[in-house]
């Protein structure tokens, strides 16, 4: 990325003092990421960037959350819909840590079981899947034992 492009990007998204920057989110999944992380309930300042040009992804979204630092368990939930998301942890305007999200071994809640006859689609039950393949993603429902494949995945 050229220096001039970097400057432009800086102009578009203001820097944060302390907090977390989540980068490389597929634009179409920004609102799902917001919902999974419960950002609508966060009281501190949040900046959302949407439809940014990205050499790798075509179009990406970015989220800057002031004063919030995520636990691994929490942030890994977004790996299902933002496979290549990168985290920058900011302290005093400096990036102090970079992390990538990882697909967890178990997915609790978040995803709907694709099987309409599964009990989880018929009663108020938190879904629970064992991840049997990470790429492509295959989730095995603990209840009906059917496998929800990546292309069938619907976020709750």
């Amino acid at each position, binding site marked *: 990325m050229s220096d001039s492009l970097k400057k432009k990007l800086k102009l578009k998204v203001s820097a944060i003092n302390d907090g977390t920057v989540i980068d490389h989110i597929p634009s179409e999944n920004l609102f799902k990421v917001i919902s999974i992380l419960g950002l609508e309930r966060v009281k501190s300042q949040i900046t959302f960037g949407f439809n940014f040009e990205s050499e790798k992804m075509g179009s990406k979204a970015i989220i800057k959350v002031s004063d919030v630092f995520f636990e691994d368990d929490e942030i890994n939930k977004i790996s299902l819909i933002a496979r290549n998301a990168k985290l920058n942890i900011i302290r005093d305007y400096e990036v102090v840590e970079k992390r990538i999200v990882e697909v967890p071994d178990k997915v609790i809640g978040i995803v709907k079981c694709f099987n309409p006859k599964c009990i989880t689609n018929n*009663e*108020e039950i938190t879904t629970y899947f064992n991840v049997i393949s990470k790429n492509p993603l295959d989730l095995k429902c603990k*209840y*009906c*034992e*059917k496998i929800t494949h990546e292309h069938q995945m619907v976020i709750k």
Partner: protein
Amino acid sequence: MKKDLISITDYSKEDYLRILKLAADFEENPNQRLLEGKVVASLFFEPSTRTRLSFETAINRLGGRIVGFSDAGSSSVSKGETLHDTIRMVSNYVDLIVMRHPLEGSARYAAEVADVPVINAGDGANQHPTQTLLDMYSILKTQGRLDNINIFMIGDLKYGRTVHSLLMAMTEFKNPIFNFIAPEELSMPEEYKMFLADKGIRYFEHTEINDNINHADIIYMTRVQKERFMDPIEYEKVKNVYILKNDMLKGTKPNMRILHPLPRINEIHPDVDKNEKAYYFTQARNGVFTRQAIIAHILNLK
């Protein structure tokens, strides 16, 4: 921790062998009042007369008492009660729950909600583990072993939960061979074939019944169900292909036995019934002893 029986793969080979040994003991001596003073809930959210009578006979022979219902229409479900609430309530009353439910995964969920053990008597198209154990007991009884068995599975191998569970269970034993005979639309799903391939277990696929069955130790017949077909013409094409008739059995091994989870429609011709290789009615009888054994195992009665 309480023991449940939800899915056949929850149990180990040691569990299978212990239950099969107990089943033989109950066959020898069916009336053992080990459940005296205990109450068992028999919750059938969809009707299944055969399975229910088998369980209730097993409970009666063990001297237990039964509460419950035989279809959802006569229970609080018809008033809109959730499975969660029904199970929470019943779990307060009884020592064991036997449950049949049309939704898949309902049994696992019920076991999480209940404080008492749950036996899955069928959850939709998912699991029916007591059927698998009685199938294994029937194989053991007729062949004298569970190792080195050549099983022919015939009919609906795509949706038939009994064949999937039996396949998984038999792979715990030495050197099984599987032969699948099914129309293309109802062939054994890839995931099971991959599972066998990964374990280095031999399997063969055929599309018709001919003298290939002469190698069989066990023929496991299933029903081809009309409702499984998207296109009724496809059903018409295959419905009469897989009918086992007595004259087909001429070249089969003397000790071969035919199993069927029942009910049958037309896939085994009635002229097979008088052949000593027809074992399906005795198989159903074995179900009572096997269910006695499962209850005894789960409640640590023996």
